């Protein structure tokens, strides 16, 4: 049986889709069988980030409506044999995903994979609650910025109320992934520090992903950032996070500011 992860945040644009692809690929690189599922009906993007957009034939909604069988809709990754994608539908009908349909598909997937990773749409509406419904682990993606932290807090409340686990009186294992972390601004004191966000949200930390041009580069190429340049700072952060999900005890590395000459001078002067 698969472990079911939902990548969620409330706020849009914080890095959920980037994270889904990166952690999915990082887990698959360890040999685990992984499927990433796009729940963003009408605004699918995970296919692009994974570089599979031209191979989408059937989607999640087609499977639910019985127009395609699940194996026909799953797209195998070009680089990693054990990584698969279930694309979202581009329909504008937001009700195309039904509770029963989602239950059936997630149930089928979890029998064949080690990890099912659900990429949640932004917001707190149906799409987001359907994406978190089966979650055992929720990766709460948060940027060190006031509105993102507030929305994450909101999502945590919903994870504690509207998931199958909550209905059974259990709790979803929630982990904070701090992304787009800018060490220069953190050092300057005009960005919330990791400790601040941790204290405010009181969630265990899964990782800290630095703001980096490598993310944009990888998305331009259609390769998950964790395998595009495995030595880049965001790739290392995502690999460590993936290993932590597998239960390994990996020391947390806070992205550090690389000081240029001018920075060194400033720091000495301060």
């Amino acid at each position, binding site marked *: 049986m698969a472990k079911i992860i939902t990548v969620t945040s409330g706020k849009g644009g914080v890095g959920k889709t980037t994270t889904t692809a990166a952690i999915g690929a990082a887990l698959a690189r360890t040999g685990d069988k992984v499927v990433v599922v796009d729940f963003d009906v009408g605004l699918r993007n995970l296919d692009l980030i994974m570089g599979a957009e031209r191979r989408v034939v059937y989607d999640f909604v087609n499977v639910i409506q019985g127009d395609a069988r699940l194996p026909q809709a799953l797209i195998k990754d070009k680089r990693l044999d054990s990584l698969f994608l279930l694309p979202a539908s581009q329909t504008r009908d937001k009700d195309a995903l039904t509770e029963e349909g989602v239950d059936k598909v997630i149930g089928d997937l979890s029998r064949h994979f080690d990890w099912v990773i659900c990429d949640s749409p932004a917001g707190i509406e149906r799409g987001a609650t359907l994406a978190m419904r089966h979650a055992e682990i929720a990766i709460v993606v948060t940027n060190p910025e*006031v509105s993102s932290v507030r929305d994450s*807090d909101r999502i945590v409340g919903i994870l*504690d109320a509207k998931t199958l686990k909550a209905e059974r009186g259990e709790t979803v294992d929630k982990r904070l992934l701090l992304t787009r972390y800018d060490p220069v601004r953190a050092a300057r004191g005009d960005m919330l520090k990791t400790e*601040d966000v941790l204290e405010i949200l009181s969630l265990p930390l899964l990782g800290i992903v630095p703001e980096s041009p490598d993310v944009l580069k990888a998305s331009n190429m259609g390769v998950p950032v964790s395998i595009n340049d495995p030595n880049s700072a965001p790739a290392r952060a995502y690999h460590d996070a993936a290993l932590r999900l597998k239960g390994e005890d990996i020391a947390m590395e806070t992205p550090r500011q690389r000081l240029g000459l001018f920075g060194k001078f400033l720091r000495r002067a301060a």
Partner: protein
Amino acid sequence: MTLWKRLFSSTSAPQARERLQILLSHERQVLGGSDLLSSLREEILAVVAKHVPCEQDNVKVRLERGTPMSILEIEVEVRGNLDIGISKAA
């Protein structure tokens, strides 16, 4: 030095942190998002109201999430000087 600091170390993060702490403690109370808090509130009200006059607004249930422990704070306001029957027993 002060001017230097002001130019190069604007620290707006502490303000962000403080505003968030205030806002979220309020929002967690109001929204909670959680059915747990509202059912606790209702059931506590029902029990207390059996014995003393007490209304909906007099029961406040607050949850402060934390690790390794969360604090569930329950406050029930009762009008007047409540006679809990100690004088009779003595």
